[in-house]
Each structure stands twice: as C-alpha cells, then as structure tokens.
C-alpha cells in the first residue's frame, strides 16, 4: 500500500505532508506529556519489532499463499494511539529512505494512510469499544479483525483518492477502487487474524502489558455514528477543497475524475476562482502541454486558461518528436560521459 512519488503530484504530496506534519507534532506533544520515560526505548524497540515482523511470511491456510502483518493496529494496542502513530511514522520513514518503499514526497500520504487511520480511527473507535478494559479471547479476535479490515479499507481508499487527485494514473476511479478494495479486504482479514493471535498470546502470557494501554483515557467515547458522519463530511470537504486547489494550480494537473465520469459537480466558478485563474496565467511559467484533443464532453469543468497552442509541444508532428527523441538520447549519453569523467576525477 506504499505510494510512490511517480504517481503523486506535488500538490497532493505537499498537502498530505502538511497534514501529517501537524499530526506528528500533535502526537509528539502528547507522548512528551505522557512523561513515561520507559516508553522511549519501548517505542524504539517495538518499531524495530514491527519493521522486522513485516518481513515474515505467514502461510494462509487453504490458499497456498502467504501474508504479512502491517502492524498498525498491533502497535496501537501495545502503545496507545499517539506513541503508535509516531512509531509507524518512523518505520515508514526508514522504509522510504532505505528501501525506497514509498516515495519521499509520498511519505506524508503513506503516514496518513497507514498510520493515522489505524491509530486514530480503527483502534479508538473499533478495537477499544469492543474490547474495553476486560478483553476476552473472542472480543480480541472480533476487535482485531474489524479494526484491521476497516483500517485497511480506509487506507486503500485513501490511496485510490490520492492517486486519482494526483492525475498521473489514467485508471478510472471505479476500476482502481475495484482493484484496491477487495484485495485489501482479504489482506485486512489476514492482518486482523495475525494481530488477534499475537494479542491473545500476550494476553495469556503477560496480561499486564495490555492492561497498561487498556486503562488509558479512551479516545473513542464518541458514538460510532457521529464519527462516521464527521468522516463523511471531512471526506467531502477534502475532496472538494483539493480538487478546487488542484484545478487552479499551474501544474497542468489533469483531472481523470472529470475525464472518466464527465461529472461537473466540483465546479468552482466564483470570483475567487477567477482571481486564481488570472494569477495562474501570470505565474504559469511553462506553456500548458495540453496536446489532448479534448472533446467538449471530456472538458474539465474548471479548465485552466487556454495557453498558446502554437508553443505547445509536441503537436502531432513527426519532425518535433524525432528531434525530442534524438535530443533525449544525446542528453543521456552526455550524462553517462560526464559521470564517467567525474568518476575518474574523483579517484585522483
């Protein structure tokens, strides 16, 4: 579920970075207030534990395939939401740096999808109300599976939305959602079962470990219905705000959502938009390489100002394309040649 930089736009990446930075600061403040000095080494070592545990193959009975653990819900159960969120953020940072698993620009999105959702939504609103402070084996099983399934469903949907709004992939929303959601339903189910198995084992072997976090102040005293309503409004707002923001940005961000559905609900045609459109015209430093012959039906509602088509590259012109290709090859050869030269210079 790690998103890569190749499929994300700077606008979406930057927005998610900002949101995640705020969440990390909030979680850090909460952990510092916690004054439990023991948590510092515990968080570090548990982070390493989950990092390593993600590499273990668990055979899924009756399928012949194997699954992995993500560890978000497990960490929240062991550490509580704030410390768990910081721990997942650190795991994802190391994965993105050392294994290029998830891009640097996409790190904000990844921390949100795989950290915020399990720690601040699935754990407090699903696992905790179900298990309360006196869990039984059945409650742990139900809570873990439900929390993991819902967490991964929301996370996968986050990936679908962020990729869609980035407009790099041409995958239609429905196709992408149909690719992502069912597979993550299975993954979530297996993740929940593994989490339940581990938590049950710990519950029998060393119950005091679980009691510590179970007795902390619950986050999720709000009824589930209210949470869902808030989430729904948040999703609508984010969708609307992001699409408006992206349609007024000078990146030439294309809207697959419009191209796919032809829907025009996300129209932003007020004075503010006008102002941004004019501003964009001033700061759009590059000709809008818009060489799709758009049919009127596929026209985005909030189109970017038309650019001078005569400067657009490449028009369907074989000559220009050949020039581009030849130029690219020469540039690559030059890069390799200069690289070799630098290598020789560095050895001297």
């Amino acid at each position, binding site marked *: 579920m790690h998103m890569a930089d190749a499929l994300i736009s700077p606008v979406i990446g930057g927005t998610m970075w900002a949101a995640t930075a705020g969440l990390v600061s909030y979680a850090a403040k909460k952990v510092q207030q916690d004054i439990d000095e023991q948590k510092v*080494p515990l968080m570090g070592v548990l982070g390493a534990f989950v990092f390593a*545990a993600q590499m273990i193959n668990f055979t899924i009975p009756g399928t012949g395939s194997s699954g992995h653990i993500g560890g978000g819900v497990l960490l929240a159960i062991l550490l509580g939401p704030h410390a768990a969120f910081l721990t997942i953020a650190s795991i994802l940072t190391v994965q993105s740096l*050392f294994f*290029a698993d998830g891009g640097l620009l996409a790190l904000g999105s990844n921390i949100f999808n795989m950290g915020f959702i399990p720690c601040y939504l699935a754990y407090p609103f699903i696992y905790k109300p179900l298990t309360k402070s006196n869990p039984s084996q059945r409650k742990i099983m139900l809570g873990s599976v439900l929390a993991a399934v819902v967490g991964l469903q929301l996370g996968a949907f986050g990936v679908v939305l962020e990729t869609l709004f980035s407009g790099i992939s*041409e995958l239609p929303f429905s196709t992408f959602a149909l690719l992502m959601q069912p597979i993550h339903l299975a993954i979530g189910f297996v993740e929940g079962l593994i989490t339940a198995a581990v938590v049950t084992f710990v519950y029998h072997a060393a119950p005091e470990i679980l009691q510590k976090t179970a007795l902390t102040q619950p986050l999720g005293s709000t009824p589930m219905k209210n949470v869902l309503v808030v989430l729904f409004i948040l999703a609508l707002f984010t969708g609307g705000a992001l699409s408006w923001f992206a349609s007024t940005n000078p990146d030439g961000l294309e809207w697959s959502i419009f191209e796919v559905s032809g829907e025009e609900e996300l129209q932003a045609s007020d004075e503010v938009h006008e102002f941004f459109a004019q501003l964009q015209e001033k700061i759009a430093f590059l000709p809008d390489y818009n060489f799709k012959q758009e049919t009127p039906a596929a026209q985005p509602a909030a189109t970017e100002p038309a650019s001078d088509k005569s400067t657009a590259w490449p028009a369907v012109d074989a000559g220009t394309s050949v*020039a581009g290709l030849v130029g690219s090859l020469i540039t690559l050869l030059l890069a390799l040649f200069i690289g070799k030269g630098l290598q020789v210079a*560095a050895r001297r």
Partner: protein
Amino acid sequence: MLKLESNWLDLRTLDELALQKTFIHKLNACTKLYTTLIFVVIVTSFSKYEVTGLIPLFFYPVALISLGNLPIHYLCKRLLMIAPFIIVIGLFNPLFDHVPVTAVGSLMVTGGWLSFVGITLKLMLTITAALLLVATTGINSICTALSKLGAPKPIVIQILFMYRYIHVLLEEFLTTLQAYHQRSFQNNGVHYKAWGSLLGQLLLRTMARAQRIYQAMLCRGYDGHIGISTAMVWTTQDKLFLFFWPVFFLFCRFVNIPQALGKLLTGGF
C-alpha cells in the same frame, strides 16, 4: 526468511556505503537533504506528458553515483524490486488514454504510452534520489538534518532508536525463524497454529529487551532527556552544491534541453 536476510544485508550495505569519505559524503546532511527534497518536488512537478524534459535530470543521480563512488548494480537491484507494482499501475495508462499525441516516423504514439514512459522515468529518478541520500549520508546525519529542519524531537529520537535496534532484532528473528523451519515440514511460511506463539514470543522477548535497555540507560544517567547533536558545518562546497543543483533542476524544468538539442541537430530551427 530470504526476505529478512536480504533486507538485512541491504541495510548493512547502505550503512557501509555511507561510511565512505568521498566529496559527496563530506558534504553536510542538510545540503543533501534539501537538494533531494527539491529534486523530488521538481521531478514530480512535470506534467504527465512531459517526457523528454525529465531526461537531463538524470545528470543528478549520475553525478552523485560517480562522485560518491556508489555501486550502480545495487541501486538497479533496489529499483527492480520496487518497480513492478508502479509499472503495472502505469501500464493502465495506454489502455485508457488512446489519444494520439505525437508520432515517431510512421508510428503514432498515444498519450497513454507517453505518460507511461513519464511515470517510469519519474520512478527511476525519485527512487535513486532517496537511496543516494542514505548511501551518501547515513541515518545519524539524516536525523540531525531532520531536527535542523524542525522535525519534533520525539520522532527524531524514535527513528534513531528504532534504526539502532533493527539490526539486533533482525538477527534474533532470523535465528527464531531458522529454528522454526528446521522443526517444521514446510519451508514457505509460518503455519497458522504458530502465528500467535512465534510472533508473540518474539514480542515478549522484545519487551523484555526494552526493559533492559531502559535500565541500562538509567545506569548511565538517563533522566528523560536525550540530546541530539545539531552541529552542522557549512563549507563553501556545501553552499556551491546547494546553489548549483537547484538552479540546474529549475533550468531543466523551464527549458526542455533535449528538445532544443534535438532541433539543433536535426535542423529543426
């Protein structure tokens, strides 16, 4: 099992590469972190049909690999491990975007293929940039740079702590899995009956280790505060590096170098 082992080896390889003393390694961490972030933002800011404009940006990884004395085959291996999923997502583009946008000779190229090539190039550039940052800087210096950037102290300490114990735990996991596999008749994963006990045992051992670490810290005077070194020396090389590359990236963003070069050579002007 294999995955655990190969990942551990990869981590160690990167750690060893970061210990070198080349010109790039000597630059301070902030310089490299800022440059990498600017690079990633510039690369991703190219719209999906701008393919040729991305090519000159390969100068950056090539220069860093050459000056930083890094093994290219290692970077390629990582690239191949990450690429498949993104390539598959990218391959949907030619299926959904049939609008012809350009032609090479008599061959019509659709928008989908063009954006697919763009995604592949962006993938190569962004992945190598992240790996190069670690292979020339190392985790300790990156954490110093992160705290300089204003990252909250708890997260920086958490990354440092976690990274330190990854090696220890990976070794322990390997031993445990080896013992498990030698006592079981299947070698492809952990049987569901052992899910809880195997991972649970490892978890309890990890918690006990955390307790011992905490005691060791107390013995060495830990009072709840961990200091992070934020000393950072800015040399002329740093300033030049931090000036040259972003200017070069921006130049690549504004001017399509290959297109201009191609026109010059094919007499297109």
